[in-house]
């Protein structure tokens, strides 16, 4: 079996989704951890150092290319799979199985992913892009992201948009976390229970921490 056959099969396509999904989950841990420095109570000093480590250092900057590659792969493969799966039933049911058989968010990964994608377009153009433009896409001078956050999150609609983005991320992770591990072949019932528990905890804690960031700025907590 050639690599082409592997990655064009239905399981191979899902393996790509699973592995890139876990990779993006790992990235979220780093992202939420570094951003949590805004709550250090030092008016953004620690946060700025963390942001400088990520943006002003070649190692994370090279890894960033891998992050975008993984993200793009997850998005493109996700859409291709969604459209392909939808095409397998030309005539639908008059009465659907619906929530009796599965959770709504497990059936709505494409929709939730699309909301996250739209959120990401806004999010990247709010912070990442202006910073990289300022750096000339190399290692030039960075903008003060802490001040930028304070400005961005002084607008209520921006805060609401970010909270909605985080809510979509939460539901996406509630299914995606455990589904990714099932897809890459974890079949031991003991681990499945463990992974679903960790998955739900991750899906609540991480998006909640992210959502609290704009809320904290808006309410003047930082």
């Amino acid at each position, binding site marked *: 079996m050639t690599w082409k*056959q592997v990655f064009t099969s239905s399981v191979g396509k899902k393996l790509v989704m699973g592995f890139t999904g876990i990779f993006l989950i790992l990235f979220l841990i780093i992202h939420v951890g570094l951003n949590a420095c805004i709550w250090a109570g030092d008016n953004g000093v620690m946060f700025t150092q963390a942001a400088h480590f990520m943006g002003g250092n070649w190692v994370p900057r090279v890894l960033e290319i891998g992050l975008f590659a993984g993200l793009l792969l997850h998005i493109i493969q996700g859409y291709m799979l969604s459209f*392909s*799966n939808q095409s397998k039933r030309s005539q639908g049911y008059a*009465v659907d199985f619906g929530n009796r058989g599965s959770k709504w968010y497990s059936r709505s990964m494409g929709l939730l992913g699309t909301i996250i994608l739209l959120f990401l377009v806004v999010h990247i153009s709010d912070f990442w892009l202006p910073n990289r433009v300022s750096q000339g896409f190399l290692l030039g001078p960075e903008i003060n992201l802490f001040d930028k956050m304070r400005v961005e999150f002084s607008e209520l609609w921006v805060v609401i948009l970010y909270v909605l983005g985080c809510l979509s991320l939460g539901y996406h992770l509630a*299914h995606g976390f455990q589904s990714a591990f099932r897809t890459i072949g974890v079949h031991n019932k003991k681990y499945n229970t463990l992974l679903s528990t960790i998955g739900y905890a991750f899906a609540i804690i991480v998006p909640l921490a992210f959502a609290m960031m704009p809320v904290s700025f808006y309410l003047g907590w930082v």
Partner: protein
Amino acid sequence: MEHYSMNLNLKVWRQQNAAAKGGFKLYRVENISSEMSFLEMFDVLNEQLVHAGEDPITFDHDCREGICGACSMHINGKPHGPWYANTTCQLHMRAFKDGDTIVVEPWRANAFPVIKDLMVDRSAFDRIIQAGGYVSVNTGNAVDGNAIPIPKNNADEAFAAAMCIGCGACVAACKNSSAMLFVGAKVSHLALLPQGDPERGSRVVNMLAQMDKEGFGACTNTGACEAACPKEISLSNIARLNKEYLAASFVDNK
């Protein structure tokens, strides 16, 4: 529960053949016993239709004791009707109340084209089995059953997977029309046993290739298949298939 009789309204999918455009037709059945099976209720309806000179409703059935996997109706939005871990032939009319309207549809999946009315062509499953769902053996003398030691847990899990009757409820329930629970069960029950071990790599690769070729979708682990399965086949069998596939694709030297 006490016996009672009921009058029902049925909304049944009628379709002359694979090429024809189908539609729902309303029927009324009266004095149906709560002790009848769902298929017996359809027998009563079909007798009515025959007496009235109409074409009876075509539906699949065979053993009527829940083991053959022939019956295949999508009843009120759920494959095999409202009861848990149940086939349509074992669904009894006590699941319904007098005056209920029941919507009956065929399995919906492009890989399961409608032959007529509620009968669909599930030969795609046969072709998936032909692609690798077996053990190649040179039949010699029968070997003593105890000659090959099998851990009890493996034997139990293999048996649980082998419970699959190939009815297609998993495909009917899945939003992607995926056959992964069926293929997962067939791959698992042989992968768990020493007899299935020598061909485990080629089996999973070939069966999956056939599944894709037949036009079933990919698995997104929603769990609807497990919820609809009359034999309670576990979703873990799909994860085991994924592991088998991953191992086979990385080890295969072609």
